[in-house]
């Protein structure tokens, strides 16, 4: 059992939790993920590690309550326990050798973009961050992101906060203004990552995206998380989760992630996380 030592609501649907998991906290690196299982009937759900504190032995997760497991998790409180919590899984985001980086988060994807920005910032890179949200009400982690970036640009689709527009427009504007990025990291809903990769493609800017396909074990055993990258089948759990955005077959992945859409619709207790993913972010 893994104890929740802190809980904070970041907005109506997004929750931050610090979970006692000393072995994972000692090992975790930006970009890696954990898998949790809420109770004996729950699914194994992957969540990216948002932060970790080796000294306190805690791992921070930030998630949107969209599926039945994340909804149940959001109902737990400080002092409650999660049945299973395993990690750190996947490879760390590569941060070595980059000087000028733009890290982009979409919605709850900012929770995953944040640790990458933090790691790059600590490694001495110049970090610009673009954080996109639908509207003012769901803006999260603004102070945290500001603290680990040289410039933070917040955009909202409706203009209710920060700049009006999409993150793709902002990235284009920054490139047009003469910013020479040697790396772009894009984390958010699949369509967002797909279009951001298209923005950078003509300039040949290396673009990393963090993928979160359906998976069970997270150790390479089920193959459910396979994605086509550069024409080859890769397993997101062990070969990723970060991949070259210019090589990923996003359309195929969007179809695969919709795998169980029909079943989730059938179930009265389930709200479809995939449908939600399209507008807000992935279930992270």
């Amino acid at each position, binding site marked *: 059992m893994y104890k929740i030592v802190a809980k904070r609501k970041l907005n109506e649907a997004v929750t931050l939790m610090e979970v006692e998991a000393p072995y994972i906290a000692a090992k975790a690196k930006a970009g890696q993920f954990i898998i949790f299982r809420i109770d004996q009937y729950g699914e194994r759900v992957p969540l990216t590690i948002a932060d970790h504190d080796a000294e306190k032995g805690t791992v921070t997760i930030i998630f949107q309550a969209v599926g039945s497991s994340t909804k149940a998790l959001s109902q737990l409180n400080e002092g409650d326990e999660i049945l299973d919590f395993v990690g750190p899984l996947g490879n760390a985001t590569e941060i070595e050798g980059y000087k000028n980086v733009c890290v982009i988060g979409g919605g709850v994807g900012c929770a995953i973009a944040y640790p990458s920005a933090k790691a790059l910032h600590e490694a001495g890179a110049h970090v610009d961050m673009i954080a996109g949200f639908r509207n003012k009400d769901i803006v999260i982690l603004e102070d945290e992101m500001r603290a680990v970036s040289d410039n933070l640009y917040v955009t909202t689709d409706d203009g209710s906060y920060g700049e009006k527009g999409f993150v793709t427009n902002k990235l284009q504007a920054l490139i047009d203004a003469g910013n020479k990025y040697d790396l772009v990291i894009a984390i958010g809903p699949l369509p967002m990552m797909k279009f951001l990769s298209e923005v950078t493609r003509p300039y040949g800017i290396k673009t990393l995206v963090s993928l979160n396909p359906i998976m*069970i074990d997270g150790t390479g055993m089920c*193959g459910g998380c396979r994605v086509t990258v550069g024409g080859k089948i890769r397993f997101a759990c062990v070969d990723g989760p970060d991949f070259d955005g210019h090589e990923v077959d996003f359309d195929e992945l969007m179809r695969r992630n919709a795998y*169980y859409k029909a079943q989730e619709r059938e179930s009265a207790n389930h709200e479809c996380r995939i449908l939600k993913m399209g507008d807000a972010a992935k279930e992270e």
Partner: protein
Amino acid sequence: MANLSLTKIPMPEQKPEERIKNFQEVALGYTEEMAKEEATRCLNCKNRPCVSGCPVNVRIPDFIAQVAQGNFEEAYKIITATNCLPAVCGRVCTQESQCESKCVRGTKGESVGIGRLERFVADYHMAHAKDEEVKIEKNGHRVAVIGSGPSGLTCAGDLARLGYSVTIFEAFHKAGGVLVYGIPEFRLPKAIVQKEVDRLESLGVEMRTNFVIGKTLTVDELFAEGYEAIFIGSGAGLPSFMNIEGESLIGVYSANEYLTRVNLMKAYSDQYDTPIRHSKAVAVVGGGNVAMDAARTAKRLGAEKVYIVYRRSEEEMPARAEEVHHAKEEGIEFKCLNNPTRILGAENGEVRAIEVISMELGEPDASGRRKPIAIAGSEHEIEVDTVVMSIGTSPNPLIRSTTSGLDANARGCLVADAEMATSRPGVFAGGDAVTGAATVILAMGAGKTAASSIDKYIKEKNNG
């Protein structure tokens, strides 16, 4: 006077038309009377050929003699002296190619039903006896076992009995390895696996689930934590795909994923959140036991048509005859001598058919089996909405890629000698991690050998 019947006492089974609607065990087990009668078929041969066919050397004629006399608990003691998982072995061991293949009775008629008797004894014990509290004097040495499948459980059990403090590290949330995620409930009830795991814990073995060695901790860190020797029994969990067109379509699974969703994650039960595709027609590609398990599972999940697509003929099929027989009884259709060429999708990205090419058998290949050769122009489609790839697995690279000095071969299997020692001092390995996908009993045999090698290694290290 021995019972001279040429055939085994038949195993009571659920009727096919009933069992395809549930996930309960197919084979129901002998009654006491049946067991005693079957036991009298054993000739108690002096040279005991059956024992030499058992990777863990169960004293087969001895335990059968006790069964014949109705001393079932005595029989249990004899079996468990060398086999710590009798209820599992009695069900899933390939007896027909092991002990029973050596049985003298098998030269004319059927061999003695050794597996069935072993199962009976184990089940009788579980139902009637309370495990005596075993007092083991700890010897103060710690051993780490990676993986809680058949090799790890066996190795841990043997070491615990010798007085070692053993910790098993398991990546999943539940112990048992392939016994819980791979083999279906209808062949091996999970409650039985749990009882065997509980028994190990009662011997003092510590079980640490949710622990991925290579990620959460490395082999080097285990040594740093004070473990004096390490056994790697991490299995062969990496699924193979055919690398044909259409394998990423919706509705294509690896057998590992399909079976894990159903067995470990219990997708067949409404109580659990795990989703699984509701299929009408399923093609399972492959001819091994895992393919049979996947096909029979698909049937139980409600598929109207389930096909086994296999590129050789039924004669070359690696699956146990019993599994093939059960699958056929349950209405699984065998499309042998057909090799998939691509998987075809509908516009929505879901599987609509599998295209196969007909094969014929040529000369024997390296495996000794006749090589299948494609018949040009014979491609045809089989209409299915789900495809399960069951063409084999290989060892996971997580451990070998994070452990220096640990040699592996070209197929990714760890290299271990006859004593199960790897190239790294103090690190032993066995089971599918070494052999590639094989059987439960071979893995158990390896775990057993490794336990005695580890015992020897630690004793020598501390005396020298």
